[in-house]
């Protein structure tokens, strides 16, 4: 009878109990406060965008799972919901209802399922959807809504787009009282969510720290009229840098594996963001920077591979 209590199994013998599903739902929860703040700031139309985006992602995920003969129950892992949520956070609040629908379908189909589903995608699905929408319908994707506290009824641009006439205090930017995408405006709640993720060790500090640090350093040096006069706080607080660095660049599937690789990845994202923001024709470059660096992740991984203990590297030295 004793034999029944013995099991023979290969390593690992101690498991953390942290499943994909759990991680996904924790990330979703940590994102919720910032989204609710966005709904509060821009009104109920942004809630509509968020819900449509999530529903579109979930439905297209189910359809593609069935088409690919996979178990549609894997929808419960929450990855499609997270994609939908992140996509909506990257959209302006007043977009027509079909924009998040198209975005959700493109995210799931072209961003994820074409490559083989969760774990096989090269690019962050939500950002694929956003890039598709941004290129396809630039007018809708750059029409911003006023925050509820704004006095003038003129529709505002994202603060990054009109640096000349700056009418925002740092506090406005920090709390989210400015035009922008639904989920990116309320920096304080995004940071709170990010702290939860860092504290629970869902994400490590390497990518966000190197990403944001690089952006701030380069903006400080090159962003002003003269060297070392750039307004780096403004570039941190305006736009999607915080959302991108903490919640999208750290996506498990599309980031490098090693610490060294993550730092290289973060620096690359930072450099590209600054180049696009200061020199490119788009006001915001976080999403394209992350997508671009996603493409180089396999190269980074190859060159930062950790040495296998006891393995011979290079030529064996003659005895």
């Amino acid at each position, binding site marked *: 009878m004793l034999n029944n209590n013995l099991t023979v199994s290969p390593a690992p013998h101690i498991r953390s109990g942290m499943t994909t599903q759990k991680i996904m739902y924790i990330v979703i929860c940590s994102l919720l406060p910032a989204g609710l703040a966005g709904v509060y700031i821009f009104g109920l139309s942004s809630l509509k965008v968020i819900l449509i985006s999530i529903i579109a992602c979930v439905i297209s995920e189910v359809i593609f799972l069935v088409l690919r003969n996979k178990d549609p129950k894997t929808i419960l892992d929450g990855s499609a919901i997270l994609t939908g949520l992140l996509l909506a956070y990257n959209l302006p609040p007043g977009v027509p209802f079909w924009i998040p629908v*198209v975005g959700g379908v493109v995210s799931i189909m*072209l961003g994820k399922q*074409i490559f083989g589903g969760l774990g096989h995608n090269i690019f962050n699905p939500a950002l694929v959807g956003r890039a*598709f929408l941004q*290129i*396809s*319908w630039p007018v809708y994707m750059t029409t911003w809504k006023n925050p509820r506290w704004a006095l003038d009824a003129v529709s505002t641009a994202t603060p990054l787009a009109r640096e000349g006439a700056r009418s925002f205090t740092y506090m406005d930017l920090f709390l989210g009282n400015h035009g922008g995408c639904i989920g990116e405006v309320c920096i304080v709640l995004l940071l709170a969510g990010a702290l939860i993720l860092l504290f629970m060790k869902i994400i490590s500090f390497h990518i966000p720290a190197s990403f944001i640090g690089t952006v701030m350093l380069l903006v400080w040096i090159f962003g002003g009229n003269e060297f070392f006069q750039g307004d780096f706080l403004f570039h941190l607080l305006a736009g999607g840098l915080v959302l991108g660095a903490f919640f999208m660049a750290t996506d498990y599937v599309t980031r490098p594996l090693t610490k060294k690789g993550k730092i290289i990845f973060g620096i690359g994202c930072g450099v590209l963001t600054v180049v696009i923001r200061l020199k490119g024709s788009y006001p915001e470059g976080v999403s394209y920077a992350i997508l671009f660096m996603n493409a180089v992740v396999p190269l980074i991984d190859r060159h930062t591979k950790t040495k296998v203990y006891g393995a011979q590297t290079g030529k064996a030295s003659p005895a």
Partner: protein
Amino acid sequence: MKKLLQEFSKGIFMENPTFRLALGLCPTLAVSTSVVNGLGMGVAATFVIVGSNVIISAIRNFIPGKIRIPCFIVIIATFVTIVELIMKAFLPALSNSLGIFVPLIVVNCIVLGRAEAFASRHGIVKSIFDGLGMGVGFTAALVIISAIREILGNGTIVGLMVARSFEPALLFILAPGALLVIGLLMGGINFLSEKK
């Protein structure tokens, strides 16, 4: 006769230059923004392929092996020049919108590929059918791709509006749209032909 028809149809289905051999993708990506452009490019390329196939196949025994590529290029360039001048004279609008990609047919992989792989080894009649097949296959691929891109990216088909309330996705007119459409079509065709 059956053999000749085989040479013709292989260029359209089994060895379609765009979807199966993945040759000549540069002009395919560049000019497939509207059906008119795609059709013009396809017809021009077909003329060049057939013409060069005939001449190369006729003189294949006189071309020394070591300098065959320069010889092919000279022959191909001759036909491209004919096409270019005719197009400029009679279809100036099309010539303008195709731009540099008409002279670039000289270095199109499909034309050189057929010269090297087929015309320099087969008789004239066979080479004509091979060139026709390849040309029609290329034209068909271009028309399919450009129809999809024009409908989705511009909301029109051959210049006619598809639906009033449809807001075209600019992406399909730009380069990423071309890559997406070609990739998805290739994937779909591979999937269907594997199923058989």
